[in-house]
């Protein structure tokens, strides 16, 4: 330990270098872990503090990132809602068998159970005339019109879906031919080409949104990377001195990685705020539209789990951008 420099000249004022107390030397594991943890907390706080020292440029960066995140997320939410609206047409091919008026509920149910045993058939469902009416009124938007009619015009229906495993054009055709031979069936409705069109359109939209998401994710990584590069440039001197006194690259990288993490997570939170604001605006106008068509459709948001995933994912992207920038630029900064 050092003593005051006022001591008499000539007498040694320092103990020999190697006599260090074991408790104060960073060699045992728990000591090192505790110091490491403390350093992480300190560095995280410092990184946050640094973002607030340049509030304007930090905010601009955060907004750019938030817009890049909000765009594909918004599209994904829109698609999910559209799919809910058009029904789950992707998973299965459905054939509707319209029954003759004289077939009663018991016969209808028996028929549904029988068809279910056929090879290649996934599920069957019997929908009575009354059920058909209720469902038609609530979803189609023509509820008012139909209640004014003297008699229920809707027939009872057996719907069958072809199981995914046997979903080929030939088995579908085979099943369709078999249903046409049934006496109780008045009409078979099976429009494969229409399903194919819907399927290809939704596939296309899915691919487009996925592509957009990937591009914008790369954009997030690059924007964070560039911001971190500028930050490294402005702290060159500090980095060089830290290297001179024995700082590892990992130690020097740490505050920049935290900064990237904060940029990613912060922009995800702003993006979520932007999305919920957009939802708020749209919800009232969608309520107007669906009200006009007599429909109960409501807009679904991202949900808690997806929001948390988005937050973690974006924090990861920010971290990645920071890592790429710091790995490259910190290594290049060597004391001369």
């Amino acid at each position, binding site marked *: *330990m*050092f*003593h*005051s*420099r006022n001591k008499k*000249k000539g007498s*040694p*004022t*320092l*103990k*020999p*270098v*190697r006599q*260090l107390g074991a408790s*104060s030397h*960073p060699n045992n594991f728990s*000591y*090192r872990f*505790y*110091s*490491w943890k*403390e*350093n992480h907390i300190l560095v995280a706080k410092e990184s946050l503090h640094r973002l607030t020292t340049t509030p304007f440029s930090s905010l601009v960066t955060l907004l750019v990132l938030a817009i890049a995140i909000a765009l594909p997320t918004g599209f994904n939410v829109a698609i999910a809602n559209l799919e809910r609206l058009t029904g789950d047409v992707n998973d299965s091919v459905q054939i509707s068998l319209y029954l003759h008026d004289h077939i009663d509920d018991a016969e209808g149910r028996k028929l549904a159970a029988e068809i279910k045993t056929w090879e290649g058939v996934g599920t069957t469902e019997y929908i009575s005339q009354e059920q058909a009416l209720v469902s038609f009124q609530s979803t189609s938007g023509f509820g008012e019109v139909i209640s004014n009619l003297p008699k229920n015009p809707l027939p009872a229906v057996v719907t069958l879906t072809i199981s995914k495993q046997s979903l080929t054009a030939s088995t579908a055709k085979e099943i369709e031919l078999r249903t046409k031979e049934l006496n109780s069936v008045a009409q078979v409705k099976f429009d494969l080409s229409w399903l194919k069109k819907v399927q290809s359109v939704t596939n296309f939209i899915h691919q487009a949104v996925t592509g957009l998401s990937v591009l914008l994710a790369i954009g997030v990584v690059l924007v964070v990377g560039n911001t971190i590069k500028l930050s490294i440039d402005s702290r060159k*001197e*500090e980095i*060089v*001195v*830290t*290297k*001179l*006194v*024995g*700082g*590892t*690259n990992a*130690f020097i990288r740490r505050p920049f990685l935290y900064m990237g993490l904060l940029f990613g997570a912060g922009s995800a939170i702003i993006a979520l705020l932007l999305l919920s604001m957009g939802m708020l605006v749209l919800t009232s106008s969608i309520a107007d539209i669906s009200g006009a068509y007599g429909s109960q459709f409501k807009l679904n948001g991202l949900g808690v789990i997806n929001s948390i995933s988005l937050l973690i994912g974006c924090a990861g992207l920010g971290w990645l951008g920071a890592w790429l920038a710091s790995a490259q630029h910190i290594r290049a900064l*060597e*004391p*001369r």
Partner: protein
Amino acid sequence: MIRFEHVTKRYATGQEALSDVSFALDAGKMTFLTGHSGAGKSTLLKLIMLMERATKGTVWIDNLDLAKLSHRQIPMLRRKIGVVYQNHQLLFDRSVYHNVALPLVVSGFHPRDVGRRVRAALDKVGLLSKEKQNPQSLSGGEQQRVGIARAVVNKPPFLLADEPTGNLDPALSAEIMELFKEFNNVGVTVLVATHDLALIARMPHRSLILRDGLLINNTAKFSNPAKFIDNDQGLPNRTEDTPIQNPSGSPTHSTIENKKHSASTNQ
């Protein structure tokens, strides 16, 4: 221990900064490294710090062959070596305390120990009362002492100094040298690069003298560096027969020692 074995350093430009330099500094000794500007003093220190790597030959620190250290191992080497620079290399975006604390923070010391050690080091250089100030508000001599506190705060076995008194007046220079001597007294191996010959002459330590990248006195203990050095670098103009003066103007003890040994070392 610091040992150079036939070390040559040639820069990418083709300039040979050191040519076949061999010497050994025993642990716990204080040594001066001198020579005109461009003689290779800074290059020699940079090789010890692994800021540069030798083109030929081997540099040993204790039993460590520096050529065998990977890039990732360099920080561990630098933690064993405290360095004082002519331009201090202090950071002006933080207080004196945080400048001195840096070597402890990077080597993973507990915040509680950091405070204790930083204050001890600042106390040692007489700047305990200025720990909260920004180094920019300190005088040149005080800044240099902050640099010294930072170099010794983690108690490294080696202390290097590159022209530590370059910007200071003689009285402050003597004070700084006194500090180095005190660290040496407690077992630190000290190597001071300087062309302040008056200062060297007053201290009875070994000098390594470089001229154009060549080590021209390897064995001398108390050689007089003045006679080896070309006098075209603005150094005090002396001949072998002129005793080196200390500030009070009288011949010093070490000058007499120098004369005694110079005959045997002048090869």
